[in-house]
């Protein structure tokens, strides 16, 4: 591949195995004497378990065992945890109900596991799971979050009276109320952020293997963060101490947040492998994925924006209820609080913000981080109400935004965040130019002549990535530090292995990270390999989510490279009898400045390992490690412009142009970054137009397959027009901000702003299906679309 440094559109090193069918995903692993697990799952949203009769199942061919929650609890397996403590505004800790990997007493959502069958083949395990008879006593269920808080609602957990998990607030309530008291104009908007199912194409899977001689477990699993999985499995679920548990996340087929969490199935697979003395494999089918993968979003919000007589924003008042489902998933508590309300200032200079968030239990699948996690909910709210306010006061939405933009950095918002760098006018200008904002009225007229309604919508998003520094998130309730680690091993022949705690499940780290080494040492990217996803190889790491692998993960690599470079220069200076300060690294060689003396990187590496002639007191070898803890979040931002045409006869929306202008700071590989944006935009457009996790009143998920849940297909979305501007992030050595989630965060309000502009009715909820858009476009039926 040659030397390909920062900024190169390097083709991906990992692609060859994927395009030839040689990827190795968890379900591709086969171990001798392997068994298969099939879970017995609750068909009811809320029920007491009065008994489990496994006798018929146990008599079926190939069945090794049927295991229940009673046995799991009896063996001391710990309850599932939530790793982020939130305190209510009265100071009380969040009300957390017990969640067991196999439930022995009361099921609280359809799909919750109550038993597991272990058998010789997957078919036998599934047949026998169907033969396990569970005696349920049905209880009334509650699905709607407002109904869950109403007096007399069915109660899910004794620990959470009224089903309220916490009642939290941020910002100065009195000052915000005062801003409203003196406002010249107040814009009000009620917003629903629809529940989504993440749907990575590879379903979750686990293969657990217990070694009786070593008392050691190996778990292959579909994880975005294998070290976090090992930590939680060891420290909280009591499966095994860390040195007796190896977690391997091999090729992982997408995650989008849903593979951060340690789910009941991984715990049960490990526990069962010891119980039956054979390896246990479980592979989710798609229906199980819909029922048990943590869902995303699901907020209801009432918001008000106060303006002064000059149309400057003076206050933002927000009341949100977030549905966390039947149990608190691993990071669920942080999503509608510190990942949401801290972004309510958007790109705007808003002096007063107050936000109250109540989270509630309902008899639905647990809700946790999904691509963007809190930031899409904040952005949808901010960009919808900003657009609404501009329309109400009769200003151009672009100019209204520009008038209220933050202009100087650093900027301290009223909701914790201190934005370090940005240029919001630059991305707005780039997007307006690319979509030909000034030419829109002519296009609208032309569309009208064809009987089509044309609309243009903007979204100026900001988000926070990295989710660090550790001390800061610790003070806000995080149970873990959010740094990253790296180790750079230069081999005696000069090839380089980089061990990283980040995990790639589609992001292309094997290429991007290698480009960093190539840039630094002038070596061929083929001479570099990136090692990740195995707790036996990489000492520790926090994994990949929150668009953190560049800004945090690569920064750790930079720190390790600094140490390697310093040592290599010392060795080279010694060998060439030069001053260390005169050594320069260029084109894979260490040169003495101003002379023709030089050594290849390989010669220096070999010298480090032969150790025949090293500087006095220097240890042999060329290998260095580093931990990197950021000094701040990073703040990617941009403007998305969406232009649509609506067919008023059918309500069908077509996106005719979509421009994304992003500021991600320094970009390592533009090709990969564009790919991240394409994917994020499509997930965001999916939320805006197609996707919705719908429950009936009994708590049955009625969209539990691809027949019923509308995943975006190729002909639902356009080709995209992408632009980037660049302000360097001052908080990390490469100046990176992160790009993984921006598309999903910024796009939904651009789409809805465009459709509401087209139809001339602001009342439209997501997903804006043809039926809803048609209704919203009908005079007299407009409220029906909400």
């Amino acid at each position, binding site marked *: 591949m040659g030397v390909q440094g920062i900024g190169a559109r390097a*083709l*991906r090193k*990992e*692609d*060859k*195995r*994927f*395009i*030839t*069918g*040689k*990827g*190795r*995903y968890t*379900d*591709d692993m*086969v171990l001798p004497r392997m068994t298969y697990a099939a879970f017995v799952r609750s068909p009811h949203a809320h029920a007491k378990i009065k008994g489990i009769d496994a006798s018929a199942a146990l008599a079926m061919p190939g069945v090794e065992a049927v295991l229940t929650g009673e046995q799991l609890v009896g063996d001391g397996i710990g309850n599932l945890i939530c790793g982020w403590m939130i305190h209510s505004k009265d100071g009380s800790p969040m009300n957390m109900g017990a969640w067991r990997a196999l439930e022995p007493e009361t099921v609280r959502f359809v799909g919750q596991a109550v038993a597991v069958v272990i058998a010789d083949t997957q*078919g036998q395990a599934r047949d026998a799971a169907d033969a396990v008879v569970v005696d349920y006593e049905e209880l009334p269920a509650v699905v709607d979050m407002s109904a869950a808080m109403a007096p007399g609602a069915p109660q899910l957990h004794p620990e959470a009276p009224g089903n309220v998990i916490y009642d939290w607030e941020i910002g100065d309530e009195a000052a915000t109320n005062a801003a409203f008291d003196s406002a010249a104009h107040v814009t009000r908007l009620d917003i629903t952020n629809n529940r989504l199912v993440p*749907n*990575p*194409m*590879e*379903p979750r899977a686990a293969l657990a293997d217990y070694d009786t001689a070593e008392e050691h477990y190996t778990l292959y699993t579909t994880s975005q963060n294998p070290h976090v999985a090992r930590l939680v499995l060891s420290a909280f679920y009591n499966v095994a101490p860390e040195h007796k548990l190896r977690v391997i996340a091999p*090729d*992982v*087929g*997408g995650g*989008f947040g849903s593979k951060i969490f340690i789910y009941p199935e991984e715990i049960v697979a490990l526990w069962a492998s010891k119980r039956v003395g054979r390896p246990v494999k479980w*592979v989710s*089918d*798609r*229906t199980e994925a819909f029922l048990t993968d943590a869902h995303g979003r699901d907020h209801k919000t009432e918001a008000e924006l106060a303006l002064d007589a000059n149309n400057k924003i003076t206050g933002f008042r927000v009341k949100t209820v977030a549905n966390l489902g039947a149990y608190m998933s691993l990071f669920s508590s942080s999503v509608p609080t510190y990942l949401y309300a801290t972004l309510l200032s958007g790109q705007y200079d808003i002096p007063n913000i107050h936000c109250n968030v109540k989270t509630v239990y309902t008899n639905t699948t647990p809700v946790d981080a999904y691509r963007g996690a809190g930031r899409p909910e904040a952005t949808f709210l901010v960009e919808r109400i900003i657009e609404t306010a501009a329309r109400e006061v009769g200003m151009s939405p672009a100019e209204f935004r520009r008038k209220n933009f933050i202009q100087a950095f650093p900027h301290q918002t009223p909701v914790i965040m201190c934005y370090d760098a940005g240029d919001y006018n630059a991305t707005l200008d780039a997007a307006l130019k690319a979509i030909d904002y000034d030419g829109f009225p002519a296009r609208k007229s032309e569309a009208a002549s064809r009987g089509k309604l044309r609309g243009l919508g903007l979204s100026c998003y900001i988000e926070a990535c990295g989710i660090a520094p550790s001390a800061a998130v610790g003070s806000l309730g995080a149970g873990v530090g959010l740094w990253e680690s790296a180790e750079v091993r230069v081999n005696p022949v000069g090839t380089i292995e980089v061990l990283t705690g980040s995990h790639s*499940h*589609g*992001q*292309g780290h094997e290429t991007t990270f290698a480009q960093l080494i190539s840039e630094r040492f002038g070596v061929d990217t083929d001479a570099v390999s990136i090692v990740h996803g195995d707790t036996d190889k990489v000492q520790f790491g926090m994994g990949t989510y929150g668009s953190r692998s560049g800004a945090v993960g690569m920064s750790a690599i930079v720190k390790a490279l600094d140490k390697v470079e310093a040592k290599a220069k010392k060795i080279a200076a010694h060998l060439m009898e030069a001053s260390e300060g005169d050594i320069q690294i260029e084109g894979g060689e260490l040169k003495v400045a101003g002379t023709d003396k030089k050594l290849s990187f390989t010669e220096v590496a070999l010298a480090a390992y032969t150790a025949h002639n090293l500087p006095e007191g220097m240890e042999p070898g060329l290998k260095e490690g580093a931990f990197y803890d950021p000094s701040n979040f990073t703040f990617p931002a941009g403007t998305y412009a969406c232009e649509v045409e609506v067919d008023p006869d059918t309500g069908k929306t077509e996106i005719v142009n979509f421009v994304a202008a992003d500021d991600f700071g320094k970009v390592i590989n533009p*090709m*990969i970054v*564009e*790919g991240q944006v*394409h*994917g*994020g*935009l*499509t*997930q965001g457009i999916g939320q805006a137009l197609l996707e919705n996790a719908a429950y009936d009143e009994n708590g049955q998920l009625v969209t539990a*397959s*691809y*027949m019923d849940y509308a*995943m*975006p*297909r*190729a*002909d639902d*979305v356009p*080709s*995209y027009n992408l632009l980037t501007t660049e302000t360097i992030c001052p908080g990390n050595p490469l100046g990176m901000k992160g790009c993984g989630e921006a*598309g999903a965060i910024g796009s939904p309000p651009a789409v809805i702003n465009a459709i509401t502009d087209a139809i001339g009715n602001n009342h439209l909820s997501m997903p804006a299906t043809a039926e809803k858009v048609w209704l919203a476009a009908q005079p007299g039926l407009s409220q029906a679309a909400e």
Partner: protein
Amino acid sequence: MMSKVTMRLNGKTVSADVEDRTLLVHFIRETQGLTGTHVGCDTSQCGACVVHVDGKAVKSCTMLAAQADGSDVLTVEGLANGDELHPVQAAFRENHGLQCGFCTPGMIMTAVDMIERHGAKLDEKTIRHELEGNICRCTGYHNIVKAIKAASDQMAGMKTATE
């Protein structure tokens, strides 16, 4: 109930006794150990399992192994000519038409079939319409569409050159 199933798989004759209910995708993945063909759903919607049966793209989860008895089956593992990638495989790499790689084998097998049926006439609209049976959650389809168009153009050029 077990049945003996024999087929040509990537040019080699293979044979095995399998349960009658064995799907073609499980015969390929588990009985034959070719794990490039993936299972992404249970309703024949996602297309991660697309292979070619007697020259036509088929979702291998919709077909029993026994129904493929006597057929010629091609999976993603059989597409390249030794070390020489098929033009569609190469185009997916050159156009960054994949991220996590899970839908990729099915996408590639669908794309090869699509190009063979449409030849040089493939435009973006047709490609997007023809991809309705394949779901990708990573790429947003943008670069998949580009890759298929590029491969279609290249293969049309190759065909002209040999005529």
